């Protein structure tokens, strides 16, 4: 924990870089009361505050949807771009080349990612863009009033929509097969886990996919629906208990030899996975898939850090960029010298 509490109650709490929680807030939410997306937004705020992240060092991206509106409700001091439906990944890819020191947070919905956005979603994974890719997954199109999205379970029946005939897209599973280097699933009803996962994701050097079940209280929150609060509460099975330990801080969480796993992240921080009932190897893709398949079978909601590979280079690592951000390069570094034009003309024959 990075907060500096002081005896005098009068002083407002600030984090290590001297910012108050208010410095991480966004505009007031215009989403429905109780919408899962709101609780995720507050965990993003908390995570960034507790990690002492400079808001200006973050860029926010989203597509279109209720979920995609939420970047407007956190980190007002960060730049953001609310782009096109299903096309957030390409937008983020281009923008993050401009300043490789920035951390990207992309917020999308299940429709935005798994329906119209499937193509860009799969391809940003292959490129391992350094982006926290949050899918606020509620099984419906909230903003257009509750039609089925591609993650709706087959057979789900909604009053105004009838019954969903098609097989669902499993976002975490798609991420695994698509070579994502960080794959987690969580539940808006489990804020602590959401927060720790966001911290871990922000420390990952590559694409970090968070498939967060985020109930739509207005259109898809019946207790029997797999994207409802009640269903999540009743069926959540956490793979492990997660604790994020910032760089250069010793590990406080009490800790059993051989039992718990430490994952050391790119920035030196450590993610501690406290073992719960099951043994689980978070570095094994096939294992991860087996677990997800089991989850389907026993229909439970497996949550936690499903898979991570900290060894892969991120997209910008592959491009051998200068230390100065590209968008700050001066003309002399962008335009070849005058002499060179002569040579160029000699090539033209």
């Amino acid at each position: 924990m990075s907060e500096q509490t002081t005896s005098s109650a009068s002083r407002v709490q600030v984090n290590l870089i001297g910012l108050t929680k208010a410095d991480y807030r966004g505009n007031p939410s215009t989403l429905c009361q109780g919408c899962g997306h709101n609780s995720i937004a507050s965990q993003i705020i908390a995570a960034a505050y507790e990690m002492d992240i400079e808001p200006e060092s973050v860029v926010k991206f989203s597509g279109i949807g209720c979920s995609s509106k939420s970047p407007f409700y956190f980190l007002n001091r960060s730049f953001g771009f609310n782009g096109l439906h299903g096309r957030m990944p390409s937008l983020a890819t281009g923008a993050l080349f401009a300043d490789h020191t920035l951390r990207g947070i992309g917020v999308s919905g299940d429709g935005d990612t798994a329906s119209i956005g499937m193509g860009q979603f799969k391809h940003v994974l292959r490129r391992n863009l350094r982006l926290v890719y949050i899918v606020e997954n509620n099984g419906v199109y909230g903003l257009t009033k509750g039609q089925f999205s591609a993650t709706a379970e087959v057979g789900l029946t909604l009053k105004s929509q009838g019954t969903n005939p098609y097989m669902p897209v499993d976002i975490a599973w798609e991420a695994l097969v698509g070579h994502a280097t960080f794959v987690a699933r969580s539940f808006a009803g489990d804020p602590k886990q959401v927060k720790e996962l966001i911290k871990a994701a922000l420390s990952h050097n590559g694409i970090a996919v968070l498939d967060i079940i985020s109930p739509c209280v207005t259109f898809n929150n019946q207790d029997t629906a797999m994207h409802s609060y009640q269903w999540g509460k009743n069926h959540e099975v956490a793979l492990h208990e997660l604790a994020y330990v910032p760089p250069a801080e010793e590990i406080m969480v009490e800790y059993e030899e051989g039992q718990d796993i430490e994952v050391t992240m790119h920035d030196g921080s450590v993610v501690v996975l406290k073992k719960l009932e099951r043994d689980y190897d978070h570095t094994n893709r096939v294992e991860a898939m087996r677990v997800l398949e089991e989850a389907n079978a026993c229909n439970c909601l497996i949550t936690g850090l499903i898979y991570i590979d900290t060894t892969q280079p991120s997209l910008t690592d592959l491009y051998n960029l200068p230390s100065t951000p590209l968008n700050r390069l001066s003309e002399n570094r962008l335009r070849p010298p005058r002499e060179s034009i002569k040579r160029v003309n000699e090539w033209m024959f």
Partner: protein
Amino acid sequence: MSAIQSSVEIDSLVNPEQAVNNFSITVGTVNGSGSQTSNLTLLRALFRMGIPVSGKNLFPSNIQGLPTWYTIRVNKDGFLARREENEVVVAMNPATFLQDLAGVVPGGAFYYADDIRLPINRQDVYAYPMPVKQITKNSGAPSNLRDYVANMVYVGILAQMLGIDLENIYQALNFHFKGKSKAIDLNYGVVQAAAEWAAKNLEKRDPYLVRPMDLTRDLIMADGNTAAALGAIYGGVQLVSWYPITPASSLAESLQTYLPVLRKDPEEEGKNTFAIIQAEDELAAIGMAVGAGWAGLRAMTSTSGPGLSLMTEYAGLAYFAEVPIVVWDVQRVGPSTGLPTRTAQGDLTFTYFMGHGDTQQVILLPGNANECFEFGWKAFDIAERLQMPVFVLSDLDLGMNNWMTKPFEYPDKPMDRGKVLWEEDLERLKGQWARYQDIDGDGIPYRTLPGNRHPHASYFARGTGHTPDAQYSEDPIVWHENLERLKRKYQTAKQYVPKPVVEEMRQANIGIIAYGSTEPAITEARYQLQAMGIPSNFLRLRALPFTEEVEEFISQHERVIVVEMNRDGQLYQLLAMEYPDKAARLISAAYTDGLPFTARRVREMIIAKMEQKNE
């Protein structure tokens, strides 16, 4: 292949003097047989002889096996448009032998590989057999390489028969193989053997000859896609996102080739000041460009028709969210997949209106390889100045064929990065600024870029309604005023886009408006029309929005013929729309069949249109 239909034109009678440095050579080969090296070698050798020359590749949408043609026009007067007539034809492909033979003008020369066992059914042409296999063999080329060099045989024979001196051939090969002597010698060996064989065994009977001139010394030879890529590099391009498509691929591939060579970072040794991403499709390609442009990079993508259609939604966002990007559309024949390896000017109206709702896009129209280079860098200045997407419409003929052109000039002004506020600017302004406020009355607001660490720097960009300070708004007045500002900005664009080029003739009373790659055909047609007593003035449009020169030009002529390579007369339509009061003066002369215009096509269209109007 009606591409080389036989038909005699009044002005191509075979008078020996007429026949010097004034004819076309067409070579018919099989696609994928590597004849491109031979054709370029001939083209370059002629260019080195100082004779005005152009080369056009007529190829199928196929990788290997189908017929393909290459036409070289030699013209002492510098008329380099495509012609339908072929004085010299080389037939290497059995599949098109008869058709190629039929394509020779009466009195023309017909060279053919002698292993093609087909009857020469014409008396009015001079036929020359070429023992291709034997010559290749005798040249001493190793047997495993003979297939690759067989096409050098017609190079050697034409050199001998037309009078191209071998030194120029050698230099052309030397350039082509970047001085690699092994390849040079191998190919040159065949050329020499072929030339010698021709000297011994062929008697020159046709009149077509070349003689050295001095008309190309200050010129270069370039294709528009390479020129565009080089121009972009001098424009400081930083992010290239693209998806392969004919005829645009070679633009991005040239960036891949030349960026590493030309853009050495003077400050951080060996680092890349650019990034090239092959996207998964065009929606992603333009999306990446928009992200990068928004974040302050000079970003571009290049595509052709089908890809352009897929870019529509993002083009609308870029227009409305005011993001500078450059989109090169190397036009091919549409609609739909159309003719992927043929040329057209069919994307003009679509691009102008690209995006649902009210949009007016900025369009640049390069007319030759030199302008491809110039607009290659200028497009970025214009896009960043206006905070708009800039579309550059080239075409297959301009983009993929080799054009004689003025050497590229180093940019004559520093980069214009537009209205960008960094930390120090915001300090000065005490953080007081609003993303979409029209401070300067030109419709162009100020912007900040991600990475700017000033606490008031950030704003939230979006494709939805927004106030001057970038807050979400559905307010009717806010919406209306923002859209009117964008319209004002489009007016401002007139100050920044390239003005048209006007060429006048004495006593001209008709005007011609055209754009892009049709210039050579139009210039030649105007010369022919003048000879027929019909002088004309010519405005070559180079950008949208139209600048005042366009209206002036129209006002100065009772009749203005708008000549273009599409079906619907798209520029004509846009002019009629922009100048309703003068629309009655405009006459549309539009035609599209996938082939570059010939002077004859232009001349006949203009005459026909004038007669129509006279009726």
